[in-house]
């Protein structure tokens, strides 16, 4: 992916840029809002990572607002030291697609960037999701593996649905909490792990090939190959 990074902190910018490049992305960096706006308006990007507060008169929110009024629909991820909920709401209202509070783990950033950048091209709703021999039917809300039906609770179904929609991508615990449960809070302990491992047990019982993988220091990932 071609990613525009607008971040004024040199150290954070270097770290993010290096990490994204190592993950196989092309990164353009702008140190302030004005340059960022210029780049965003003149070149084509798959994804933008913006600091919420930027020097030079144009901050992240203004930048996105300007782009959106010009019809630019490039996905935007906000980075911000402002953690208050209404700040998040402000950022998302301005046209941001996701919001990540500093300090953050790079794995979290990468997971969110890839989730945003590789969103399905068409919004046409799929009725079935498939990973290897695992199949999830969105209409009948059933899960089968190798033709064998697996009973899951509604919450586990949504958890699996989210993992399968991002098959091959890392999904972090916070992302699961935000997207599956729709809450922004700190669960203190890794309660999500319990839910995932319960789901994993149901899916993998009787099969020798696990589908849900744990990515150390990051989150979970569903894919066919180990």
């Amino acid at each position, binding site marked *: 992916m071609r990613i525009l990074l607008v971040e004024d902190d040199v150290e954070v910018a270097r770290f993010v840029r290096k990490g994204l490049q190592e993950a196989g992305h092309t990164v353009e960096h702008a140190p302030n809002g004005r340059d960022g706006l210029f780049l965003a308006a003149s070149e084509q990007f798959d994804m933008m990572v913006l600091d919420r507060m930027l020097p030079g008169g144009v901050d992240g929110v203004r930048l996105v607002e300007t782009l959106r009024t010009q019809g630019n629909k490039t996905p935007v991820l906000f980075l911000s030291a402002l953690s208050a909920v209404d700040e998040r709401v402000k950022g998302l209202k301005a046209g941001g697609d996701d919001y990540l509070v500093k300090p953050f783990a790079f794995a979290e950033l990468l997971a969110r960037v890839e989730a945003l950048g590789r969103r399905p091209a068409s919004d046409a709703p799929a009725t079935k999701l498939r990973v290897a021999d695992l199949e999830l039917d969105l209409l009948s809300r059933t899960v089968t593996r190798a033709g064998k039906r697996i009973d899951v609770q509604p919450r586990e179904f949504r958890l699996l649905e989210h993992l399968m929609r991002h098959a091959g991508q890392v999904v972090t615990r916070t992302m699961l909490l935000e997207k599956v*449960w729709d809450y922004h809070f700190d669960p*203190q302990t890794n309660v999500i792990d*319990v839910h995932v491992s319960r789901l994993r047990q149901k899916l993998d019982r009787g099969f020798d090939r696990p589908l849900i993988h744990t990515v150390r220091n990051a989150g979970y990932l569903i894919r066919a190959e180990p």
Partner: protein
Amino acid sequence: MRHDRVGARALPREVPARHAEALATAPPLGLLRSAGARFALIFAGTFVTAAIAFTAVLWWGTAGALDRQTDAAVRADALALSERWRDGGVSAVVEGIEDRLAADIENHAIYMLQAPDGRRVAGNLNQWPVAADAPGAWAYTTVQREGQPAEARLHDIVLEGGFRLLIGRDIDEKTRLRQLLGEGVAWSFGAAITFAIIGAWLMRGMLASRLRPAFATAASIAGGDLSHRVPLTGRHDEFDLLAATMNTMLDRIDRLMSGVRGVSDAIAHDLRTPIARARAKLEDALATAPDEAALKLAVEQGIADLDAISRVFQALLRIAEAEAGARRRAFAPFDLAPVLADAADIYGAAAEARGQVLDTRIPERLEIVGDRDLLLQAVANLLDNAVKFAPPDGHVLLAATLRPDGGAEVVVEDDGPGLAPADRARAGERFFRADAARTTPGSGLGLSLVQAVAHLHGGSLALGDAKPGRESPGLRVTLGLGPA
């Protein structure tokens, strides 16, 4: 600047100090900028306007009435004599004038009848006055009476045949009466203005003296001394109301300030420890790690330590936000029941993994007004605690009820060791951890946040035994939420 009084407190103080200067010099404001002076001016202006209106009415009703009376008499006389002229000609009018003059006991009648050739035919003026020398004219003029000037009101009418008739009244006495009246009015007007000025001055003084304590208090608060309060007069008037409101505000500021001080103390104390630990570990690894794998492990551990520290920061910020009441902006009506069900769902799995049972008693609907994320965080903290402290085969209960007053009550119970009564009072303090809990992981901020959330929602946090009398009484935490 008042740095001597500001001292070493940890808050930015430059700007308030400047305000303090402004407040301290506030009483001798420019006269026009002083609200007291403006009120006084408005008062005096109203008073004087009323006096002018009163005087005008009085004048119109007295002096004006005198003038109108004279004119009416002259006009009536003119009508009567004109009629006589039409009926009886010159002789009738002459006779009428003679009779009128003879009967004029008040001695104020003036008449003159003039023939077309300018000859005086009748009346009591020796010649035609210049002031009334126009047909139909009304005039004021001076005539001589025994050598003394006297004021007269004259009316000139033309009769058929070229005769002219002058009818008048000596108004000298009326003019003197008018003058007396004028003097009286002028004096009373002067008195009214004097009273207006005195009243305005008193009012301004009163306003200033009632406001001075508030000034003084605000100035010393701005100067950094938060212990001052505005004294109440006990009159329960608007000024007392203002003072009481100010005092309530100051109490709140005081509480927030001590909260901030408490947090900075706690941060200094409790965050330095993990930071120092992380730093020591990294430094030690740098110096003594035998191979790259060990170094990597130490760095990973360092990152985990930093993450824990930043989570504590996040928790502290949330508490501060809740305590400052800033999040009340995010308040919205919502149904708490599904939120509680979600919390039970999220932590139920964790409890199950530990062999515990999480029971719920949640009503179908629980409509409240509040901050959904914060309430979930509070309940999550309570459930996290309960799961942590309940024994491996224990029970955790999450229950909620709607109170008759429209508020709600959320109860979380566990059958763990409970909390000693002495510790309960301190449980809401930041970073407080009972001795028995030192070995379990946790920041000591969980209940602080719950308490702050309860206060934010106009409620309270209460701790008690879940099963009193047992060896391990368990803990029952009641989170009360005030009505919207």
